[in-house]
């Protein structure tokens, strides 16, 4: 996970490097999840749901573009959103492992959405007060979007959890399979610690309470048990991903890479 070789960022080293890393991390989360949701197109359980999932994917893609563009701008090495999305390799992406997990079935997809959109809402609500104007502005818009995403995930968690025996089992399985990846959302490495101290980033640990409360309330109403396994220590923020990431990037990037420098 290195920006080395792309020249010194403008306006002073470590603080700027931190900001670039943070914006990239948020952008990568959104990009990878948008990519996963794009896979549902024409495959959703009902037409109305196809529209809903694509809507969410489009919002996330918009967030990714804003954040990655900003990261490139701050970095000052001439990289734009496409350079960052299409020309970095597995070890340079800093998304959390949760978002790169495959869609599996609708239950697992909703579980992933519940965990992640609940986290994103806490995150963006906190970031509205960021000392960085751009992040604050992105967060203000994104918070409204992810409130909607969280509602969607919540509505479906209730319907699947308290629907049929089969849906309950599938939802429960999804929640349990993805549970180990939730922990990474609340970890703080040095980058985030420094930025949080400066009022730029949200301290991930501070997002935990709101997340827990919403999750507990939702799962209880959905007659689902909260998983109680251990959380895996996060590795995504330092660019160490699951084996899924390589395939995801191959699909996302191959055409762009096949035609270096081309316009589309």
């Amino acid at each position, binding site marked *: 996970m290195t920006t080395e070789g792309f020249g010194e960022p403008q306006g002073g080293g470590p603080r700027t490097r931190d900001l670039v890393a943070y914006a990239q991390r948020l952008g990568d989360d959104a990009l990878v999840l948008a990519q996963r949701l794009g896979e549902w197109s024409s495959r959703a359980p009902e*037409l109305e749901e196809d529209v809903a999932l694509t809507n969410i994917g489009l919002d996330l893609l918009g967030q990714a573009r804003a954040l990655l563009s900003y990261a490139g701008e701050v970095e000052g090495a001439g990289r734009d959103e496409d350079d960052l999305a299409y020309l970095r390799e597995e070890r340079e992406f800093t998304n959390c492992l949760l978002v790169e997990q495959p869609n599996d079935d609708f239950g697992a997809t909703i579980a992933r959405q519940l965990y992640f959109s609940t986290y994103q809402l806490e995150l963006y609500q906190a970031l509205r007060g960021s000392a960085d104007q751009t992040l604050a502005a992105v967060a203000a818009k994104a918070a409204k979007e992810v409130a909607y995403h969280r509602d969607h995930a919540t509505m479906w968690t209730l319907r699947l959890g308290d629907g049929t025996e089969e849906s309950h089992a599938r939802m429960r399985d999804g929640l349990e399979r993805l549970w180990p990846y939730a922990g990474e959302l609340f970890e703080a490495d040095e980058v985030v610690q420094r930025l949080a101290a400066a009022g730029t980033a949200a301290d991930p640990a501070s997002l935990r309470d709101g997340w827990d409360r919403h999750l507990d309330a939702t799962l209880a109403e959905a007659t689902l048990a909260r998983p109680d396994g251990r959380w895996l220590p996060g590795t995504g923020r330092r660019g160490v991903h699951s084996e899924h990431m390589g395939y995801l990037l191959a699909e996302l990037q191959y055409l762009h890479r096949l*035609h270096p420098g081309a316009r589309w």
Partner: protein
Amino acid sequence: MDGQASFDAAIATDQRIEPRDWMPEAYRRTLVRQIAQHAHSEIIGMQPEGNWITRAPSLRRKAILMAKVQDEAGHGLYLYSAAETLGVSRDQLMDLLHAGKQKYSSIFNYPAVTWADMGAIGWLVDGAAIMNQVPLCRCSYGPYARAMIRICKEESFHQRQGFEILHTLSRGSEAQHAMAQDAVDRWWWPSLMMFGPPDDQSAHTAQSMAWNIKRHTNDELRQKFVDMCVPQAEVLGLTLPDPDLRWNEATRHWDFGPVDWDELARVIKGDGPANRKRMEHKLRAHAEGAWVREAAASYAAKRRDREAAA
């Protein structure tokens, strides 16, 4: 006035027929079939383009493609909505599609092989669809006409996007230009087939026109389409794969070569290159989603029971 007389008067004065009006059974049947197949086409049409969402070569193109495919789902919804005013349910129509008893536009039985196909589909397939659709905004049946007005409003950006993709490719690298030309070479003739068989072989045209469902003949629209595309191809810097394309000074139209109607017949019958894939994909999504639909229905029923008991 009895029902038939009211209906005839409405048609004669180009008024709209609305859901509760008396209508000939054949008129109702024709509309159900036409609207349903139009809806099915939108849904199946999501596949060739949807497949490229994860591989779009820029984030902007990815976003535009996602929005376009989402629009198509929406269009399907508007059309099923219109069909349902005629006394059928969406489920019934889906069953007919899945059983192969109702069709969708055969254009979607061609594979989207390269990124440039996104451009060709937008320019040619959506272009042809628009040509068919604009007159439908004045269709005699109210709900269908209103759905079409909504659709046409959203459709114009689709064709522009396709044109823009091809324009950028054509002026890009040699490889990109070749990709664009190859896509146009493959989609041109199938697009002409979208207007249906020639007038002298089209059984339904006369009746549909008498009922103000159809406003122009197949050949009229096909000619209009060719006339529109030829200058556009020139702007694109791409050629059309028809050696017989020639300006006719007398008629002020572009004469074009013979369409392979055998190919159209084969593809309609089910022998198109991607027929099976399209149906399997649809059937699988439907089957895999059954437990989800049931869960939502079950939850709703449980809630109703709880509220009733409270």
